[in-house]
């Protein structure tokens, strides 16, 4: 049964008519064309699909859109403001924290959620915050450096 779901995505209020059983990840990518959020494992293990809902990092592959009614959602596309990248995005580029780039949107969103609550995290806190994000290229060192000094 199609339902109207109202939510705020990247600061814009949107109402979408959709099956409540559709995954948030599919709504973002296929209906809203926000393809920055990636699909990796689809079972909550790799973190490639991470977005921020109401200030918390979550796996968009394990959330049905019905659960998102009234939520404020931020995706990787929402970090850029007025054509300028977020300082976290710039830091990832400066520190060489991107190789193939597939994990990067999810990694940045986990880091973004951490910095919302804790602007000066320790290295251990950074490691804990990105524990749900797999990167098979960088070895994590540059990623941690990028999050430390945005």
């Amino acid at each position, binding site marked *: 049964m199609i339902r109207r779901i109202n939510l705020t995505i990247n600061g814009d209020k949107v109402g979408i008519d959709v099956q409540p059983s559709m995954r948030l990840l599919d709504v973002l990518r296929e209906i809203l064309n926000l393809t920055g959020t990636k699909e990796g494992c*689809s079972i909550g293990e790799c973190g490639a699909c991470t977005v921020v809902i109401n200030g918390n990092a979550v*796996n968009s592959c394990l*959330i*049905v859109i019905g*659960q998102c009614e009234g939520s404020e959602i931020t995706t990787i596309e929402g970090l850029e403001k007025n054509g300028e990248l977020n300082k976290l995005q710039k830091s990832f580029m400066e520190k060489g924290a991107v190789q193939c780039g597939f994990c990067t949107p999810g990694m940045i969103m986990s880091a973004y959620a951490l910095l919302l609550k804790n602007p000066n995290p320790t290295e251990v806190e950074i490691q804990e*915050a990105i524990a749900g994000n797999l990167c098979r290229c960088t070895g994590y060192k540059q990623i941690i450096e990028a999050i430390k000094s945005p």
Partner: protein
Amino acid sequence: MTDFDYIQPTTLQEASKVLSSDGINTLIYAGGTDALSLLKNDIYKQHKVLNLKKIEGLNYISFDKTNGLRIGALATISEIGSSPEIKENYNIIHEAANEIASPQLRNMGTLGGNLCQRPRCWYYREDFDCIRKGGGECFAYEGRNKFHCIVGGGPCYIVHPSDMAVALLALDAKVVIHSNNGERTIPINDLYVLPQDDPMNETILKPGEIVKEIQVQPPVKGIKSGYVKFKERDTWDFAVVSVGAVINSTNGIINNVNIAFGGIAPKPWSEKSLNKSLSSVRINENELEGKLKNLFSNAETLSENAYKVPLVRNLTKRLLLRLVQ
């Protein structure tokens, strides 16, 4: 995945009404991190999904020294893991919560869902018609059983995956269950069943029953508690074996201790005889090794999981040494 109607009650009474009319065909849904996986894999085929998250008054953590701790079923694992009161008074819950899954999953997963999650057995999760899904055999018994149980098994050999349940068992917590007929409060140990009593369910919950609250008695002065979890992948994973302990000691001698185990049985497990035998024991490595050398010597290990016996003994020793020294 079966297409389903998505129902969003705003009160427990409304939820109970839906469940009392069609509880068997209705899946109770909270964070959904486990339930959605089961729906996607067609292990769950309910045509109705009842989202509890719009119900007011089920997401809370309240503590006072007289009444103890009350946690609503919809409190997230993140909220539990970051609660200062829980960290100060119930370290075992704090440690267990922060051992669960990844930050993303802890932000969605709820206490009620964690207690009621389904087993991780690969035969149950994949396309095998096993006993837990109503089939005729447990494929783990003669198949791949590295992560399966060493006690309490038969005819199914799952382990219960909840970390919170182990911590709460060590604390002798109580569970408030809501249904259309009212509420009842039971010890957490009575929430779970062994496969010999019900091979298709891990809990006694009947269709229409909802876990509403967890209650833990006030902390006794001087008590220490903790949780240790061995995982195959250290960053985050389900427990291969875990141990939780609540201990009261004086000058390094145990007055009393309550230990619970995860990853070894189809339900969160305790050994009352072990708790008793540790009373009055001086905590040091030699004494503990002596007391623990026969722990689970009666285990019925399978072809690939005998390693869990020394692992559970060593983790227990390590935890008790940490808590007292």
